[in-house]
């Protein structure tokens, strides 16, 4: 029983870390521009398919495909941001939601056209397959890898945001955009770069997700709900909030499916509604 609990906690944490990588960029860009970018899910899916292409068609190893997924998602997203999304910053959130969900629809149809609707298998390196035994329990090696990557990313994000000049600019812009502009910060550029980094992380998340939850054309849409829960419950623009919310959501999801499969996602939605009703700005949100 204790052993089961440990494994469920571990698997839940791993899933939560995946959700964190997928969501954190959306949280920061939403906090910056109040732009409800559901296309984030499409960028995550793009990263997944980049990894599939790089490993299968180019024959490169899985680890090499991860930076590729990051870079391609970042570049494509910033292209959309500069040309289309920026027209919608002043539009209401409904228009933002509809436009970007339209993009998700179109992207998943395009993915179905190019790759078919089947799940995409990928080849993992030897050391990421199988399990690692510890204290008599068997932990999935890939999940350990995932948790380490997520922790490294969290560390880099926190350090970058706290100790670099660019990080300070982002924080200032999240706090108060007009004041930041007044201080001579080029909010426009800050946002474009942040947007690219955030979407790049989504792409990386999409690549990391394949082994754990699979990849098919509905990925962008399906995981969007999870991402939006993480972002709204955690609080806009808060890395710590995303981290905590993603961990909780991951653990609750895995534990729920393991212990009370009948209730399905019921508990998760209930908790989300309760949190948002009591704290509409999310657990760690300021506004």
């Amino acid at each position: 029983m204790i052993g089961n609990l440990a494994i469920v906690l571990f698997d839940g944490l791993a899933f939560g870390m995946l959700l964190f990588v997928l969501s954190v960029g959306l949280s920061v860009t939403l906090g910056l521009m109040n732009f409800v970018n559901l296309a984030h899910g499409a960028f995550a899916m793009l990263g997944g398919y980049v990894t599939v292409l790089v490993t299968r068609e180019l024959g490169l190893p899985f680890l090499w495909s991860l930076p590729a997924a990051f870079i391609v998602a970042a570049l494509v997203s910033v292209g959309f941001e500069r040309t289309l999304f920026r027209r919608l910053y002043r539009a209401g959130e409904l228009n933002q939601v509809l436009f970007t969900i339209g993009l998700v629809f179109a992207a998943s149809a395009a993915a179905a056209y190019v790759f078919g609707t089947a799940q995409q298998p990928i080849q993992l390196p030897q050391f990421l397959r199988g399990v690692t035994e510890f204290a008599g329990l068997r932990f999935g090696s890939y999940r350990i890898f995932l948790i380490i990557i997520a922790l490294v990313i969290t560390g880099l994000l926190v350090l970058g945001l706290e100790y670099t000049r660019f990080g300070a600019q982002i924080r200032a812009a999240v706090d108060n955009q007009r004041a930041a502009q007044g201080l001579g910060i080029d909010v426009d550029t800050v946002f474009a770069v942040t947007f690219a980094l955030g979407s790049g992380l989504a792409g990386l998340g999409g690549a990391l997700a394949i082994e754990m939850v699979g990849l098919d054309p509905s990925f962008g849409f399906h995981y969007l709900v999870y991402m939006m829960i993480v972002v709204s419950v955690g609080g806009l623009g808060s890395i710590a909030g995303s981290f905590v919310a993603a961990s909780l959501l991951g653990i609750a999801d895995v534990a729920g499916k393991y212990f009370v499969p009948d209730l399905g996602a019921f508990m998760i939605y209930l908790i989300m509604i309760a949190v948002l009703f009591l704290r509409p700005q999310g657990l760690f949100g300021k506004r």
Partner: protein
Amino acid sequence: MTTPASSTADNHAWLRRQARWSPYELAFWLAVLIPFWVFPTYLTLASQIAITALFAVSVDLVLGYAGIVTLGHAMFFGLGAYAAGLLTKAGWGEPLSGLVLSGLLTALVGLLVSFMIVRVQHLALLMITLGLGLLTAELANSLGWLTGGTDGLQGVDVWPVFNHFEFDLWGYTAYAYALAALFVGVAAARRIVHSSFGLSLRGVRENLNRMPAIGSPWRRHLQIVYTISAGMAGIAGAVLTHTTETVSLDSLSFQRSADVVVMLILGGTGRLYGAILGAAIFMIARDQLSDMNPQYWYFWIGLLLMLVVLFMPKGILGGLSGLLRRLGG
């Protein structure tokens, strides 16, 4: 369109003109009778469109007029559908009273939910409406003994309308029934939007910040319209149950909540007939393209959404009426 008014009589006349039934409206209600004679094979589709249009009109009241975004309105549609179905299974198959009871029940649920809805905005509002919709769908799924789960509710037996008109295989009764429900719904919605209440709803949509500064209890207004809208959505769901004699989990799905918003945006918000036009275009297109893989069908929906948001913010009907106005000088 607007001429300077300098006397109060002109103002009265202008306000009356805003609320008048226009010739276009009358023509529309005559045109929807055509399927009875010309396309009887499409009567089933036509009743589906009428039901969906009624649902879209209910969403237009909250989203188009009052400006409350909702991504979970299928919860009311599905609740109404299940309520009507369960009522017949309990032995009461009279349809009209079934509609009223289902509508009252969903209105009551809407009233309860409204206490929560009017206290949040922006992202939290989006997520709470979305979450409530998903929650209801999950609940119906896990209460299989009541709802039939994924098999749907079977054995729904509806009595003839007015004890006389049997729901026939060809769908004549079904279409007449759905059309009558849509007409009553639109007439009621029209009355609401052309009342002082409807004006205050538009005020909330246009500038929420100003409403308290003119002494408006705007939260209560939103609760009232949300309750009415929930009731109307529930009636649309009940009509679906009565005309198809089955209820499926699909009636509560997020897909339905999302599709109805898409239809509304396509047709044009805040003008009632935009909701109907959007529902018709969406359903007819989906029917015509039904042999297409649904994945590809969503490519066109996605593209259309993006184009409408960028270039036609008032939807197709809004664009058309703007065009007509320009042509008319």
